């Protein structure tokens, strides 16, 4: 195997892997073009001509409820990830660049938080928010997504690597306040790392199912995951719903795939955090 510049085996394995990963995406693209009767009768990978009709049907489902789910998802993921990134950046910067009593206790608590299985928190979070009368509101999904121990952990690494202590000293000698320094010097320096934190949290919220599933009763507040899961449940009694489910699944993955392809260079993830250190 050595001394050959190109390996056929390597090429074959990579192409097989790519094919396996693309198969369901290719299928949903084809299936969205089929009518309800064709979905279960024609050959799986044989496209048809009903994509536009299916989109019109999806659009008409309960006065465009589907688009509301998409808008809700964008709101949950966008606002949740933005708030979480800012909160993580501040905390990570404090942990990386300041010495203060209780620092290691705070940091160790956050590290323990990284290993807490988030989904296990959902039911007690529901019960606590129910006591405050906040379940079945946008806040019930947004607030728990503002805190991300892993985001804080990453932000601490990025702050340690990208914010030189000498620059902080210089701003202090210039008499700049700490909060102003944070906004005008520190956050811009951490920018690249913060995009990664944002993307992580954005995808995590976009993909989340259990938290909104538990918190929300009103289907007008649903994100796309809970909405599609509900549509699929209806399909069991009304098979005509299956085309809406399939078309809805296709439309729902378009924005995230677009986001991935445009922001590829930020996906340099080092969980063990050796490589991002300067």
């Amino acid at each position, binding site marked *: 195997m050595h001394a050959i510049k190109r390996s056929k085996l390597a090429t074959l394995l990579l192409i097989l892997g790519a094919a396996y990963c693309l198969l369901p995406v290719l299928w949903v693209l084809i299936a969205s073009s089929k009518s309800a009767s064709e979905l279960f009768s024609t050959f*799986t990978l044989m496209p048809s001509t009903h994509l536009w009709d299916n989109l019109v049907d999806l659009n008409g489902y309960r006065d465009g409820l589907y688009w509301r789910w998409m808008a809700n998802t964008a709101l949950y993921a966008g606002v949740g990830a933005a708030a979480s990134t800012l909160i993580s950046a501040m905390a990570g910067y404090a942990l990386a660049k300041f010495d203060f009593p209780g620092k290691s206790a705070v940091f160790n608590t956050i590290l323990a938080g990284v290993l807490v299985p988030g989904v*296990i928190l959902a039911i007690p979070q529901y*019960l606590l928010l129910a006591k405050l009368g906040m379940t079945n509101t946008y806040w019930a999904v947004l607030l728990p997504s503002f805190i991300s121990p892993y985001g804080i952990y990453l932000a601490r690494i990025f702050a340690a690597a990208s914010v030189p202590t000498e620059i902080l000293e210089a701003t202090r000698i210039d008499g700049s306040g700490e909060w102003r320094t944070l906004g005008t010097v520190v956050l811009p320096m951490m920018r690249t790392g913060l995009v990664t934190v944002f993307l992580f949290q954005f995808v995590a919220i976009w993909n989340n199912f259990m938290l909104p599933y538990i918190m929300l009763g009103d289907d007008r507040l649903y994100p796309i995951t809970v909405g599609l899961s509900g549509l*699929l449940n209806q399909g069991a009694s009304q098979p005509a719903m299956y085309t809406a489910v399939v078309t809805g699944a296709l439309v729902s993955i378009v924005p995230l795939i677009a986001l991935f392809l445009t922001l590829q260079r930020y996906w340099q993830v080092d969980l063990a955090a050796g490589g991002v250190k300067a």
Partner: protein
Amino acid sequence: MSLTSTAPRKTEAPPAGSPRRRKAKRAGTPYGFLAPAMILFAAFLAAPIFYAAYLSLRKVKVSGLGLGSKSRTEIWAGLDNYTRSLTDPEFLPSVGRVGAYGLIVVPTMLGLALMFALLLDANRTRESIGKFARISIFLPYAVPAVVASLLWGFLYLPRVSPINDIAEALGFAGPNLLSADLTLFAVANIAIWGGTGFNMIVIYTALKAVPTSLYESARIDGASEMAIAWRIKIPIVMPSLVMTFVFSLIATLQVFAEPMTLRPLANTISTTWTPLMKVYRDAFARNDIYAAAATSVIIALATFILSFGFLKLVGRRAFNQED
């Protein structure tokens, strides 16, 4: 959480020439920066954990006929809820199922992720193919578990599955991937599909951070690419492999979205198919939040024991804590 009560200091410039005052002023700053994170941590991580632990030790006592609000009171239950959870005839099978699921998912997913990362890093294919493969394999990370389950769920249906079409064309009966024997593999495949690409990127990033000069002398000495992978590359990315393993383990124990989504398509998935589905059923279908809390605590403890036990076994701290 008393740290959070320290208010952020004002931001005006300190008087010139008084470094001590400036230093005193700064003392409160880190607490101010940490305050939002610590308040949210307390409210949405710490409080729910303690609340779940508290509820797991409580139960409702019904007096008289159980009518009226006064007749139902909450009392201490000791470990009753835990005994009830552990002896529930549906609990152990669900644990066994998740155990088997984890044994399939974690090694297969990480094995594939490592293989693809090494293949990409070895650079033995045309660049365009490498790039295409990297993007394609990472793509499923952009697909939510619910949507992934939905897509695979349809592909598993004998009436839709291309495998069945091909099998029938050749004159066999195709397999029913949603039958009792195969459901576990069907669910595992969804998790493997969704997770391989992300883990591949993590390992690939770690590989790229290694200076190539490390391999070059080995190459000059005539070491094969295989030997370089085994003896140099894999040991170097070991810390990343350890962390991907721990995160995969945590994700495995809380499997919920995939089987919940597949249920309408597969009648072989019960409402207590995984421990977390049982927690959900107890809390919401049966209104027994005490049993649900006890089961949650058991899952959380099992997760901690497994992840810390594993880290201890490989002799590593969870994260690089030193700068």
